[in-house]
């Protein structure tokens, strides 16, 4: 009950903050602060003259508020979004605005409206921020930091308002807009707003244009050093189905004498004519180097920042590996066990990144479902990269099992800031084992 009440309070406070931030310009916030201070100091008109400052500021602000309430201009808009965006990389796109009024519109500002980033009541109650257990009971009960953390985690894009070029009556204008995606996954726009400042530039009136659109945002990627994957071609059966051509497309190996049972279509007629005896073409299946990229999605109450870093590391590998001549099997567990293969005319890197953009923490299934998934495909892979979120017994068991199958391994364990040392000192360590500290992943990857 108390959590529900607190949640309502935080929502109201954030509503007010959002309203002030959008409605008031910097000058407006300055004048408003001055008004409050002048009211406090000048409450007794016989002691100071601050009440005169108050009166003037009040009149200016009252006019601005009244002026901001009357604006009925209508606009149309069209947004030309690119196919993808990437976390942390500024994304520029174009917006075409149409003035639907018969007056010229000058001095406007454009603001994008994204979906509400605030957590739901369930999220607020169930999710906890990293290190929350170390906070005082009062801080835990109030949940202010949890609210702030959740809101930050769900804040999908950072947008700076842009000045709109002058719009002629019934005319249109095109302008470039920039947004910085902050989270992977879909970046959802609900519409855009055109802000008109008042003459004193303190408050703004808004005209909203509903324009719902979505843009997939790919995970953050880190540059990887020149890197050779463990393992090599070992007769893993890629099979015809995975080749780039349709139908049977095994590799031609040599010619040999006919043996009873050989299909007639393999007979090499020219050689028969030359040699005088039936000669057939001998084929063998295509074999590919096939790597597995195993992503651990089982985050047991830890730092979701660590999970994001793990996805980024997986994305870095997925887009750095040369997959013209090899295959990459991405394996992780979500609502069910997923296995995607890319390379050699199958899925492209973009698609793998798109999949990684939507990976979520798995809370419904146990860890051994990932182990089963890996075990299913272990016979076909020539090397394996495991990106893990912890280094506990279950994960060590998975790695031991892969080692027992004599598969070359690269194990990367993501750790919360300052916890890398604890994991590195754990007893069992496979041959290629690295601990990457959240926040310093790029540095860690450079040392691979």
């Amino acid at each position: 009950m108390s959590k529900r009440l607190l949640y309502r309070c935080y929502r109201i406070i954030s509503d007010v903050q959002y309203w002030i931030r959008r409605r008031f310009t910097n000058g407006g916030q300055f004048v408003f602060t001055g008004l409050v201070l002048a009211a406090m100091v000048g409450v007794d008109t016989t002691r100071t003259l601050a009440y005169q400052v108050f009166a003037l500021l009040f009149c200016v602000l009252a006019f601005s508020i009244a002026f901001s309430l009357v604006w009925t201009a209508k606009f149309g808009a069209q947004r030309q979004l690119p196919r993808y965006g990437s976390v942390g990389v500024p994304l520029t796109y174009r917006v075409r605005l149409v003035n639907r009024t018969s007056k010229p519109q000058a001095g406007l500002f454009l603001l994008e409206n994204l979906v509400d980033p605030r957590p739901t009541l369930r999220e607020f109650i169930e999710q906890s921020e990293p290190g929350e257990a170390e906070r005082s009971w009062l801080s835990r009960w109030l949940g202010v930091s949890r609210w702030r953390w959740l809101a930050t985690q769900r804040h999908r894009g950072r947008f700076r308002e842009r000045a709109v070029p002058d719009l002629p009556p019934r005319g249109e204008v095109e302008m470039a807009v920039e947004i910085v995606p902050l989270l992977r996954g879909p970046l959802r726009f609900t519409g855009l707003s055109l802000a008109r400042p008042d003459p004193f530039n303190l408050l703004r009136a808004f005209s909203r244009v509903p324009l719902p659109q979505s843009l997939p945002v790919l995970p953050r990627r880190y540059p990887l050093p020149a890197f050779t994957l463990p393992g090599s071609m070992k007769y893993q059966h890629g099979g015809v189905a995975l080749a780039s051509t349709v139908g049977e497309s095994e590799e031609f190996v040599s010619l040999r004498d006919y043996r009873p049972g050989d299909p007639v279509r393999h007979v090499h007629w020219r050689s028969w004519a030359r040699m005088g005896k039936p000669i057939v073409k001998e084929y063998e299946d295509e074999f590919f180097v096939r790597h597995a990229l195993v992503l651990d999605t089982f985050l047991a109450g830890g730092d979701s920042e660590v999970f994001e870093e793990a996805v980024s590391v997986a994305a870095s590998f997925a887009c750095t590996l040369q997959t013209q001549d090899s295959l990459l099997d991405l394996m992780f567990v979500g609502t069910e066990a997923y296995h995607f293969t890319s390379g050699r005319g199958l899925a492209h890197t973009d698609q793998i990144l798109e999949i990684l953009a939507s990976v979520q923490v798995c809370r419904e299934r146990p860890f051994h479902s990932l182990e089963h998934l890996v075990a299913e495909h272990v016979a076909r892979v020539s090397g394996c990269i495991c990106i893990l979120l912890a280094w506990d017994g279950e994960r060590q068991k998975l790695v031991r099992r892969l080692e027992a199958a004599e598969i070359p391994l690269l194990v990367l364990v993501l750790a919360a800031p300052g916890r890398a040392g604890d994991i590195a000192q754990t007893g069992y360590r496979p041959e290629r084992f690295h601990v990457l500290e959240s926040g310093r992943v790029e540095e860690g990857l450079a040392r691979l």
Partner: protein
Amino acid sequence: MKTPPLLLGACLLFWGWQTDIPLVGAVMALVLEGSRAMGWRWELGDDDFGRLWKLSLSLLLGDAVYAMSVSQRTDLDLYLFPWLPIVFFPMVAGQVYSTHDRIPLRVFFWPLPSWMTPEQRIREINVTYPYFGACLLATSVSNRETMLFYAGNAVLLGWTLWTARSRRFPAPAWLALFAVIIAVGYQSSGLLSRMQKVLERRYASRIAQGTGELTDPYESRTAIGRIGRLKLSGAITLRIDPFFSGRPPGLLRQTSYTLYNSGYWLATRPQFARVPSGAYSDEWELLPEPEDYDGVRISTRLGEGLRLLAVPHGAFELDRLPVKDLATNRLGTFRVFGGPDWVNYSARFHPGQTIDGPPGIEDLRIPRNEDTALQRIADDLGLHNLKPEEAIATIRAFFEEHFRYTTFLSLPEELSFEAASPLSRFLLEFREGHCEYFASATVLLLREAGIPSRYVTGYAVREFSPREQRYVVRMRDAHAWTIYYADGHWHELDTTPGSWQEAESARAAWWEPVTDYLSTLQFRFARWRAEHGMGALLSYGGALLVPLIVFGVWRFLVKKRRRRFQRLAPADKSLVRPRGDDSEFYRLESQLIRCAPERRPGESPARWLARISDTPACRPLASSLFDAIRLHYRHRFDPLGLDSHERVQLARIVDGCIEQLRTTAHPRR
């Protein structure tokens, strides 16, 4: 955004002028505005800004110590705020003389708070606007109530708003609108001042209750009719030192009332009028000095709220009362505005002429529900047939002989008749009560006898403190009595039996000596602070503060060997300037993007013009635009460049295009 040039300087000059330190304001303005003319800047990092912030905090601490030593709780802001421009000057000077335009937010926190997000930690702020606000606030506290303050305030604010105005609105309309707002604001400020007076009058009792005052100059709610024991604390509220005769006045009056109704005394026409100060600012002459008079020195804490003085009857001059204003009304109430919390003032008095206004019809008014009882008593005493002095003596004797003082209020049921008011029952039935009963009944009986009279509240002076060697007045000494008008003057009449003082003293708590001792200490400290605060600070604190500031400045300037960066001279600048960056075409470009799609990243100006040449705004200009871009390209990339004739031609084409674009955007009617 930076403050516009000269705004801070003007604000500091205004502050200096209003706070009577014009030279300090001028020097500070010169230092800040001089930065624009200086060709060098300091390279200041977080540590340096942190040091400047600590210097500002030290100055703020010094300011607070000064304010606390010379002021009281109620007017701390009046001493603290005026120095804010000096306090925060190091920070602003640091910003304007640094190579950075802004100061990192993290500098202001030590250690960094956990709630601060990484974005907030790298955020930088411009301190010039908050400084501008602090200067205005400081100026407003100087309290020179003239039109000039409002005018200066309006000019400075208008200046700020002008630079940030939206270009959507034409300048003349903006100026006209701001002029209207200035006029409305001025009217509103007058309205605020008047509103405070009205509200004070209407809610004076709540203000008095909220601030712990016993007296409200507009209305007095007595305990008449209430049942139970009256309780007032034994805290010392006044200290009295009689001089001349050595005897204290028996009663110290705070206010008087005229109309009685069901336990309430109301003041009619209680408007206050300011009293001009005498030869010195803490001297207040109320009436001409009589031939013989007595004097008394009164120490008290005025506190917040209505700030009423307790003065002896017939006070004609107040001295050593360092307040901003003193106001009195026709009911003999003294009210002070501004000034310290603790006061130690002298009152000279002579019980003849008083500042009370002449009696009016309301000073003879008797409430209808008390009329029966009063007439009955008056008939019994034969008041209607007596001369005023005889009537007064009869009333005094009547209360002395037939009435008893008690602080326990009861209404005996067996004698009660429901229609009668508590005061009538006091007169006719139970004949015991506290001072409010006696004073109210006396006033009404005097009026019944045709003598104008008023109900007065204040304190009785009766206790001499051997420890303090002066008279002390406690809260429980609060008293009510009567003044009546005879022989052209107002006279005091207290009919409460003398036993009330013993009855009240008997109620003293056993811990009262301890609280008295603490009260004495507090009083001595307050008096010391009032008498020596400023001097002590200057002699002790100042001696410490000056080397501290000198050390801080030395550490900042010398010890660190700060790197000073010279601004690039214009000659050097030209070496790095791209060729042709002075082309007039850029002016045209900035005008074009207002009415046509802007240039895309990587799009050449020629391609852009080709793209937009078909838009409604650019279609009529197409050929001129291409001429302009051709000349612009030659100016930028042709090794021979443009000759002077061609350069003029480019400028003309650009001017023509801009003019035409403006005409298209805002067609004249």
